[in-house]
């Protein structure tokens, strides 16, 4: 019954696309985030759903969409360069079979990030993409949040619809995405037109935000806690009553800490005392190995290059008995340990050049959003400013905060090609292009230029 309902939903969604082909782009966002074909055990699982929806989305845009407003942002060119570069390193990868398996999903994420901004050419499309991302990821987050509330959590133990530890169903990744999504949820509440602001919308957003906060607690990931802390600090930038906010945050923390399970506070304690923690020490050892590796392989070793590492880890645990403190040193030998950091993932797999392109893509995103924020805040505060100039700076800020949360989470999780984040980058590119267009109303679209060239000389 559940399987049938899910299948009917997907068929219905795709059927609406025949009336408005853009719905297929949203359907791809939904399928890529939630992976309903993995939740389903019969009907959807038996067809290549992701491929079908991608073909519909691209075909719909190519054949039926107005492309006069589609512009190529230079960050999309950067994504294209990264795509080609990764393709080349895959051909000469240290582990060709494993590299090909990773390439199989990475190229899709990059191609879609390149394509997405071309379709997001109206305000409503931008909003609908953000809404679809929030609701699709929200399904996993609500599920995890409720289970965490009822004590179903634990590191690697929180169960979702799918237990294959890939994509958003991996604890650390979901923690980071859940926190990164919070600013977007509130942008949708304050400026959304599909679900205009009402007490019901606010109630749902509050509950969803609570579920987002519960994910790092439920999955007991340290990354999530860092991300949450950063978002708290970033929110200070946009809140009018800063002292009140700080006071409330302090009270909330004081109430929350005693309610947290002991296993959670114990695990978070290892952030400070990382030398006693094997997982943290392994990361440091792998990062040192990566730095050595790129000395000999400056262009990286292709996807999954970490598999060749052999590392020796020393963990130190101090135990105090009376006046005596004994330090127990344990040596552990390990191999093929993953990078556990997007920065080192890029460095080890794609070398300095690949890391450079990736960082450039990230930093230009932060910078573009900062510029939009500054420019549109001025417009929003100008005398006589209407409601139509209020949403732009807020969306730029939300996308910037989400990216900063991601970049912080990335320090300790290898999620350099996370499709959800590339969708956020796609949204940033689209917002930048859209706002430039409405700021400078000139017929300088690709379509208009081609039309001018096609005119016979007089």
């Amino acid at each position, binding site marked *: 019954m559940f399987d049938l309902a899910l299948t009917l*939903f997907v068929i219905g969604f795709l059927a609406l696309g025949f009336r408005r082909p853009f719905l297929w782009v949203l359907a791809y966002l939904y399928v890529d985030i939630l992976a309903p074909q993995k939740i389903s055990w019969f009907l959807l699982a038996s067809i290549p759903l992701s491929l079908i929806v991608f073909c519909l989305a691209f075909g719909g845009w190519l054949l039926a969409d107005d492309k006069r407003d589609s512009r190529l942002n230079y960050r999309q060119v950067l994504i294209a360069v990264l795509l080609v570069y990764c393709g080349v390193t895959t051909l000469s990868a240290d582990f060709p079979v494993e590299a090909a398996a990773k390439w199989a999903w990475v190229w899709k994420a990059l191609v879609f990030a390149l394509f997405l901004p071309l379709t997001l050419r109206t305000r409503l499309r931008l909003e609908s993409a953000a809404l679809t991302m929030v609701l699709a990821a929200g399904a996993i987050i609500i599920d995890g949040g409720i289970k965490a509330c009822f004590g179903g959590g634990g590191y690697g133990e929180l169960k979702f619809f799918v237990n294959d530890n890939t994509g958003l169903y991996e604890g650390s990744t979901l923690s980071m995405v859940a926190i990164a999504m919070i600013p977007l949820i509130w942008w949708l509440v304050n400026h959304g037109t*599909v679900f205009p602001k009402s007490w019901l919308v606010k109630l749902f957003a509050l509950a969803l935000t609570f579920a987002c906060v519960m994910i790092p607690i439920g999955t007991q990931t340290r990354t999530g806690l860092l991300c949450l802390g950063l978002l708290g600090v970033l929110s200070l930038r946009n809140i009018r009553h800063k002292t009140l906010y700080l006071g409330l945050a302090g009270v909330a923390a004081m109430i929350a800490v005693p309610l947290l399970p002991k296993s959670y506070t114990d695990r978070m304690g290892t952030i400070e005392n990382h030398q006693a923690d094997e997982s943290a020490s392994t990361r440091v050892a792998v990062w040192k190995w990566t730095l050595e590796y790129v000395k000999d392989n400056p262009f990286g070793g292709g996807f999954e290059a970490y598999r060749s590492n052999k590392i020796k880890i020393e963990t130190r645990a101090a135990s105090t008995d009376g006046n005596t403190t004994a330090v127990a040193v344990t040596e552990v030998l390990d191999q093929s340990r993953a990078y556990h950091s997007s920065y080192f993932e890029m460095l080890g797999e794609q070398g300095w050049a690949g890391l450079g392109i990736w960082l450039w893509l990230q930093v230009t995103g932060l910078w573009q959003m900062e510029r939009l924020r500054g420019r549109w805040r001025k417009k929003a505060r100008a005398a006589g400013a209407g409601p139509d100039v209020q949403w732009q700076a807020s969306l730029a800020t939300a996308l910037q905060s989400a990216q900063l949360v991601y970049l912080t989470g990335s320090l300790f999780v290898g999620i350099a090609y996370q499709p959800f984040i590339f969708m956020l980058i796609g949204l940033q590119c689209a917002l930048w292009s859209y706002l430039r267009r409405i700021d400078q109303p000139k017929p300088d679209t690709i379509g208009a230029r081609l039309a001018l060239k096609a005119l016979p000389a007089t």
Partner: protein
Amino acid sequence: MVDYFAIGLTHALLALAAWRLVMSPALDRDPETENSLGPDKPDV
């Protein structure tokens, strides 16, 4: 049970959003840019 609730709630909202989007002319034609680009091409 929790799984059904999470899927049911979000999918109901997604379905409602999709329906509202299909009904909205602003999905394909932005009122902000409409005037700046001259006359529309006929729909394909």
